[in-house]
């Protein structure tokens, strides 16, 4: 990758992050502001302690600002305080309370920012995924995408809410502490000013160096975890081949390697911690020794020394923290790029001035050719007209392109050549949502959402319908799909939970639920993609009759292997290797004595075979 490309990508990442930050930036800024104010309160406390030691308890002249001197004079001067030490205590307690309150406000603002950021990211990504074309879904693996949606968004959240705010906070706190230190005693401040950059620099360098060791450990944990995973999923294979010992050795070897890697890493880390302890320990000692010298020489008061020691203790946390956080921040870049991949994928777009015509006309496939990849063409110049209000049956082997025909009609894939029209209007020029609303499809493998049966059926209904109308349509659909009995067999009826966390439905029940979900839509065109295969012959017939009654005037396409399902259609098409081999009415096809006739013969002959 060239430098320019890298730069451009980084700019993209920043732009994506900026978009996500809409609505949460203010919280983060507010949070950092609170944190800074809190730090200021905290930094005043050592001053009070110092003054108290020097001027109230001791007899010297503590260093104070004119503002503070003003307050003290009003209270009656140092002498008055000496008799009323509780005033000092009260001041410290108050400042402590204010500091704690600011910390609280910082935490809450920061959390609000973080969670707003996450919510925005999640919502934006989810919405974008929904708007992506179906081909994108086919191309990308679910697990990988979910990983990007969940753990990568979490990394970004940590980057902004933990790392970025920590760096800003710690830097400001460090600056303020140093300012207080300098104002307390400039000469003594030279010690921390010299030592701090060394600690931060060393810590950043160390963490950058150690990053690859962490990566190696992670990778090896992955390998180990994978060995366990494969062993467990393949437990039958392991046992059946009697390879327990081999598996044990394999796991033990990797386990040892992984543990060794961690111990090596921890050796480095321990050395690093120890050196950090040493340098900060020396810092504390140097301040004490030189401070003592200055006190003895009279160039510093005891109170100032005590205050200075307190400030010195306050900078240790931000100093030791900064290096680690800075080096960790680089990880976020990868995550943002992985999320940007989703967000920047091209959405499914309707053409300009997309049409929303009435969808009651004839459905026409004109020279439609299609393949999922360039090498394998699945459909070859399909020409097919389905007259408005008629039923078309499609028969074909597995992989003959039947389902693809449905996908194309619903514009799940763009058409590379040929065109599909409804009422003479090219579907490519229509609004996708309009097209799909008017073509109700029962998919071959219907997906049920986790939710109640009712929610699942209502999934296909528009939002503007009145509740009564929704209920009426659902009841009707249940009857048509022969689902009444099934639903009544559940304790909770329509409110029964299905899907991932609910009851498991049989294949036939799932199919019928999917049919009900499609029927409620009252669409002018209906497609049944092999959607009665798991239902027995009688129920199949019952459903078809009910449909027929309801759907007067509906154009329907039925794909099936079952001749009895297809034989009453106005037109039957036999699809063979992506080409239409035969078409016509049942009787006509029988007369042709071709494929259809033969399949019919086999299916009706089945009674005879067992004789």
């Amino acid at each position, binding site marked *: 990758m060239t430098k320019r490309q890298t730069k451009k990508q980084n700019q993209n990442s920043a732009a994506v992050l900026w978009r996500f930050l809409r609505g949460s930036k203010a919280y983060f800024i507010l949070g950092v502001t609170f944190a800074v104010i809190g730090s200021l309160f905290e930094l005043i406390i050592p001053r009070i302690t110092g003054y108290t030691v020097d001027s109230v308890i001791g007899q010297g002249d503590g260093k104070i600002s004119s503002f503070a001197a003003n307050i003290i004079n009003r209270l009656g001067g140092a002498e008055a305080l000496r008799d009323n030490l509780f005033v000092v205590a009260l001041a410290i307690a108050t400042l*402590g309370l204010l500091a704690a309150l600011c910390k609280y406000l910082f935490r809450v603002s920061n*959390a609000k920012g973080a969670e707003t950021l*996450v*919510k925005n990211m999640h919502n934006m990504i989810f919405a974008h995924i929904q708007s992506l074309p*179906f081909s994108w879904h086919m191309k990308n693996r679910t697990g990988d995408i979910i990983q990007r949606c969940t753990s990568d968004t979490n990394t970004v959240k940590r980057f902004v809410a933990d790392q970025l705010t920590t760096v800003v906070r710690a830097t400001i706190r460090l600056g303020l502490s140093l300012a207080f230190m300098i104002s307390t005693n400039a000469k003594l401040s030279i010690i921390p000013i010299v030592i701090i950059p060394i600690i931060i620099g060393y810590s950043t360098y160390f963490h950058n160096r150690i990053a690859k060791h962490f990566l190696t450990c992670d990778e090896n944990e992955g390998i180990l975890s994978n060995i366990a995973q494969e062993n*467990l999923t393949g437990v039958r294979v392991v046992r059946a081949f009697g*390879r327990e010992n081999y598996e044990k050795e394999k796991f033990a070897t990797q*386990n040892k390697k992984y543990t060794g890697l961690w111990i090596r890493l921890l050796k480095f880390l321990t050395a690093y911690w*120890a050196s950090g302890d040493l340098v900060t320990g020396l810092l504390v000692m140097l301040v004490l020794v030189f401070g003592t010298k200055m006190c003895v020489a009279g160039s510093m008061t005891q109170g100032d020394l005590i205050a200075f020691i307190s400030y010195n203790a306050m900078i240790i946390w931000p100093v030791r923290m900064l290096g680690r956080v800075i080096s960790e921040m680089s990880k976020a870049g990868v995550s943002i790029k992985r999320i940007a991949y989703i967000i920047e994928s091209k959405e499914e777009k309707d053409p300009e001035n997309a049409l929303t015509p009435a969808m009651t006309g004839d459905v026409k496939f004109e020279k439609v050719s299609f393949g999922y990849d360039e090498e394998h063409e699945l459909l070859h110049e399909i020409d097919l007209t389905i007259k408005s209000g008629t039923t078309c049956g499609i028969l074909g082997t597995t992989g003959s392109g039947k389902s693809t025909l449905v996908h194309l009609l619903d514009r799940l894939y763009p058409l590379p050549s040929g065109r599909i029209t409804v009422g003479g209007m090219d579907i490519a020029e229509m609004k996708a949502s309009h097209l799909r609303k008017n073509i109700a499809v029962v998919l071959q493998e219907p997906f049920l959402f986790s939710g109640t049966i009712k929610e699942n059926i209502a999934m296909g209904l528009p939002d503007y319908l009145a509740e009564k109308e929704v209920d009426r349509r659902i009841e009707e659909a249940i009857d048509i799909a022969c689902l009444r009995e099934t639903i009544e067999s559940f304790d909770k009826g329509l409110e029964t939970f299905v899907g991932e966390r609910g009851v498991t439905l049989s294949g036939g029940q799932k199919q019928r639920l999917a049919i009900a979900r499609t029927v409620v839509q009252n669409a002018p065109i209906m497609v049944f993609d092999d959607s009665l*295969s798991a239902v027995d012959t009688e129920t199949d017939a019952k459903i078809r009759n009910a449909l027929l009654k309801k759907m007067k005037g509906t154009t329907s396409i039925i794909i099936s292997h079952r001749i009895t399902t297809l034989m009453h259609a106005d037109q039957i098409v036999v699809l063979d290797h992506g080409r239409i081999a035969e078409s016509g009415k049942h009787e006509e096809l029988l007369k042709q004595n071709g494929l259809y006739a033969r399949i019919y013969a086999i299916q009706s002959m089945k009674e005879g075979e067992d004789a």
Partner: protein
Amino acid sequence: MKAKKEKTASLPFFGIPKLFPFLKKYASAFILMLLMGALGSAIDIILPLFQRYAINNFIAKETLVGLGWFVVLYCLTLGVQIVANVIATFRASCIEMWIDRDLRSACFNHLQTLSFSYFNQNSVGYIHSRVMSDTGNIGALVSWSFMDCIWHLSYIIGAAVVMFSLNARLAIIVLAVVPLLAIAIAFFQKKLTNLNREVREANSRITGNFNEGIVGAKTIKTLVAEEKVKRHFGEESQRMYKVSVGASRFRGLFWTVISFASYLALALVLWQGGVITLDGVLELGTLSVFITYAVGIMEPVLWIVDAISELIATRVNIERVSKLLETKSDVVDSEEVIEKYGDNFSPKRENWEELHGDIEFRDVSFQYPDGTETVLEHFNLKIPKGTNVAIVGETGAGKSTLVNLVCRFYEPTTGEYLIDGRPAKERSQLWLHSNIGYVLQTPHLFSGTIEENLKYGRPDATEEQMWEALRCVSAEDLVKKMENGLGSEVGEGGDLLSTGEKQLISFARAILADPKILVLDEATSSVDTMTEQIIQNAMKEVIKGRTAFTIAHRLSTIRDADIILVVQDGKIVERGTHKELLALRGAYYRLYMRQYEEESVEKGFSQREAQ
């Protein structure tokens, strides 16, 4: 698998005694860790005394005599502390890693001996996290939590001792805050645990929603339900926001209380200490030491409470792991058998007889250990060497039961299972398993190369033999076309191959092992019709001379079997040849008719092609 309510049969002492066998090995390291931890902590208490000495002796007396020795002693103390800390932390790190490693291996190895009832009752994900994450938590507990407790407890105790020796009244003031704080922290911790669980649940709902939005993309598009799912997602992410911010708010309050408590202690010390210093009872240096302790003692309290809650939380992990390690296998080789044939990890192959392949079930009744129903009752079946047994039935009907018994994955409840005329129990499981070839419905490959996978059942196979096996299943071209031939990587779980390709490789693997007994669990269900035909033909050759069990969903594949067993609701309801069973007009007949339609279409097409 549904999340089962876990029984919290509380182990005494948080389950720690269960870990003694694992800790014993590292007793000396453990003691060293604790001693060094206590030493490091003791020095933490001593260091402020240097400050006291400096103020009381150098500054107050305005002299620098002895400052050189002071510095030397300070450095020495610091040095000792760092060495103690290095030893303590590194020991803790090592103990954590070692315990992790030992527990992981112990769990993994024990799993290799458990019977299948365990794997049927617990999902892979559940077992996997026993091996990988529970062990990690335990390791961290016995090292770092203990270390933390010792470290901070000795700090508190030490600081208390020093404070009392310096000034009892001030000591009482500082220490009075401690128990109050501990109670407050404990209260917060408990509430926080609940809140954190709510956050985790909200989070997993979000993941579930992402999953639905991605897996269900096709259905959502055809139903034009994008807006609905987006709205639903928005509600979930809003809920997540609320729960998370709520938890953060509480966490913020928690920290606020802690930091305020330390300022309160500081204020009290300054007030009361100031009063007695003024009275001349306390030296200024001593007061500064108290200031240090007052601020410094709050955090250790926090960490101790934290460690205790860790101990409580980890009890569950210890329980789970010890439960796993105490689970007994349902199928155990007797001591005499192990004596002669060896165990799973160290077989005595020199004593193994050759397996001929005659199998007999004599009056076998069987009930799954976790089931309530007897699935086999007084079952008798003689299967001479070379018989081809087919087992058919609907998905989920329990077709695997017989195969599970054949492989001795389970033992019959009553009755006898004989191999070559001798009870199977008289030989080791490994002996039997080494003679079985097993091809699964969902083919399972291990990450690695094709060669490694092929050799799984026969580590000493030559290249020629591998090609021979591949040729047998018509996978020769497939492997030859791959870039690295036999050395090509198959990816995690074989993911780089298609399901059909995986199927072929796992088939070749089984054949290469040259088993006397072959089990084909719907082995050809995921390959296309052409490949299936090829495999079918190859199988006829391969099966010759072997006792074969074929579990089939597609009936067309087993028409030629010597005996067909029909399974319904877990029980064998019919047995006979294809012809006999059709004539029965029972379960087999019905199953056959249902599948007939689809097959007839394929058949119709293939007949025409043949012409």
